[in-house]
């Protein structure tokens, strides 16, 4: 009797191990999902390489044409979209915000995780609370602040308010408390290192994995920011997303022009994704990151 049960158990366990193998059906589901994910991007590229004749074509074209260069020229020559300027603006804003967010978040995260000071927990709670407030809440008075500072229409308006985020601080704090051993900091102290020296040469190198994920996400987020630039910048000095929206409302019949714009706006993110995909996925799956 007992052997029968044992044998049945063994078979069931072996069976369940086999069940963890991906079946052909699993691959079919996944490949279908990925095809759906990739298709609009592929289609975007196809239209960007065609002429506007494709607009009425039945069936729609599924292969790339040869007019990419031409459409790019039209895009960058377009006087209403200021696309080249928009690219530069977005690149500057995204890079500065990403760099500064990582630096200040690491610094504050280190302080919260490894230094002792009065009011630490209460101050940390404030940071967690700020993460819950939706950004759009403050957009109207933030705009009024910008009017007072004479920053409307200027690039710093989309940079300065976002130089460090509560989310970044919290993420780096979580990472620092488990990635940096206390003994290391103590040893550096005994050697007479100042607090900043400890941060710079001991803590920052240890934080690198989380810092790179934070940098990537901040860059992507800033690049994709739309509602605030749309509110505070002017059409003659836009960011990429704003410029795309301008194209969209002014030339909604000129698909190849718009699609050329969407391709250019997506390429930098795509490159970041291909190069750092593994880290990005790791960051999301550690639950540390919300986009």
């Amino acid at each position, binding site marked *: 009797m007992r052997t029968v049960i044992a044998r049945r*158990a063994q078979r069931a366990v072996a069976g369940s191990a086999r069940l963890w193998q991906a079946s052909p059906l699993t691959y079919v589901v996944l490949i279908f999902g990925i095809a759906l994910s990739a298709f609009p991007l592929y289609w975007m590229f196809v239209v960007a390489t065609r002429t506007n004749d494709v607009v009425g074509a039945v069936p729609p074209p599924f292969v790339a044409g040869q007019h990419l260069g031409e459409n790019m020229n039209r895009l960058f020559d377009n006087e209403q979209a200021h696309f080249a300027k928009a690219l530069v603006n977005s690149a500057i804003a995204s890079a500065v915000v990403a760099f500064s967010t990582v630096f200040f978040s690491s610094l504050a995260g*280190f302080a919260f995780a490894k230094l*002792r000071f009065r009011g630490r927990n209460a101050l940390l709670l404030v940071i967690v609370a700020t993460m819950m407030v939706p950004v*759009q*809440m403050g957009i109207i008075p933030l705009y009024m602040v910008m009017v007072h500072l004479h920053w409307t229409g200027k690039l710093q308006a989309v940079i300065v308010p976002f130089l460090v985020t509560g989310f970044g601080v919290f993420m780096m704090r979580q990472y620092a408390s488990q990635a940096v051993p206390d003994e290391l900091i103590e040893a550096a102290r005994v050697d*007479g290192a100042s607090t900043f020296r400890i941060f710079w040469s001991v803590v920052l190198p240890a934080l690198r994995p989380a810092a790179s994920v934070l940098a990537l996400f901040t860059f992507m987020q800033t690049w994709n920011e*739309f509602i605030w630039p749309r509110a505070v910048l002017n059409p003659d000095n836009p960011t990429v997303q704003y410029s795309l929206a301008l194209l969209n409302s002014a030339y909604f019949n000129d698909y190849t022009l718009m*699609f050329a714009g*969407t391709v250019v706006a997506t390429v930098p993110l795509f490159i970041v994704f291909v190069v750092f995909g593994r880290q990005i996925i790791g960051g*999301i799956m550690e639950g540390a990151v919300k986009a």
Partner: protein
Amino acid sequence: MALDVRPAPPGARAAPPSRRRRWRSRLSRLDMSLSPYLYISPFYLLFLVFGLFPLGYTFWVSLNHWEIIGGHEFIGLRNYERLLTDDQFWNAVGNTFAIFLIATIPQLVLALLLANALNRKMRAPTLFRMGVLLPLVTSVAAVAIVFTQIFGRDYGMANWFLHFFGVHSVDWQANKWSSWLAIATMVDWRWTGYNALIFLAGMQAIPRSLYEAAAIDGASRMKQFWRITVPLLRPTIVFVTIISTIGGLQLFTEPLLFNNGYMNGGSLRQSQTVAMYMFENAFQRFQYGYGSAVAWMLFLLILVFSLFNFLIIRRLAGGEK
């Protein structure tokens, strides 16, 4: 999110009484006591000026009749009273919730399915994960523009595809349901893979021995999924739902570009969301006071609805006892 309160490392030991040493130890003590505040101050300064002040100020502005030119006058809660009977506001609330529901429910189911498929031993797992995440790295405006074209009335690919099934020329922008559906599709396309990865992370934390035990008891795959995976995934499901709620109720870019940049969301306001209505009031009608009241209502909606979701999901995913 437990706060950990580990003691900080002990500081430099008391220095022997030599003048230079004493000076150095005083400096080091100053460094120890001031540095933490210095390091965390950038966030608080920035938050004070660009976060907290605007937030409080929004509330103050919302209590005023406040337009771009001329002064402003305190009117108490009158903006909120007006909101309660403002058909355009409730229309926007209805649209936002409709799009949110149409988008979120299928999205969660699809994400669970995808995560379940990804949670297997397979070749090149990173490649598959990157594949499902691909839409997230596309710029928002680009997604909106591409999908708007796909959902075009005359030459759009969606209509071309549907005509094989005998459906002819849906004017996606013109009707409530069709525009909601199109916008929800954009949202789902972008976020399903991301949520699948979060679910996957949750699934990987479930001990395999539970499934083995269930297999011994003769539970089918289906039963294992519903009785083990889903209940144990409850915290992750709650997290994803709340994140989706916060994002979904603030929806702005997709419906805006779907309507070629018009804040009103179509001639009959078919697809105007609350965020668009706020923007329309503040930056097109220049009624800052009223726009701010919309902003506060949006915040309250998000808060109440997140709580509501939290309670529902906790009950639903709990399974029958």
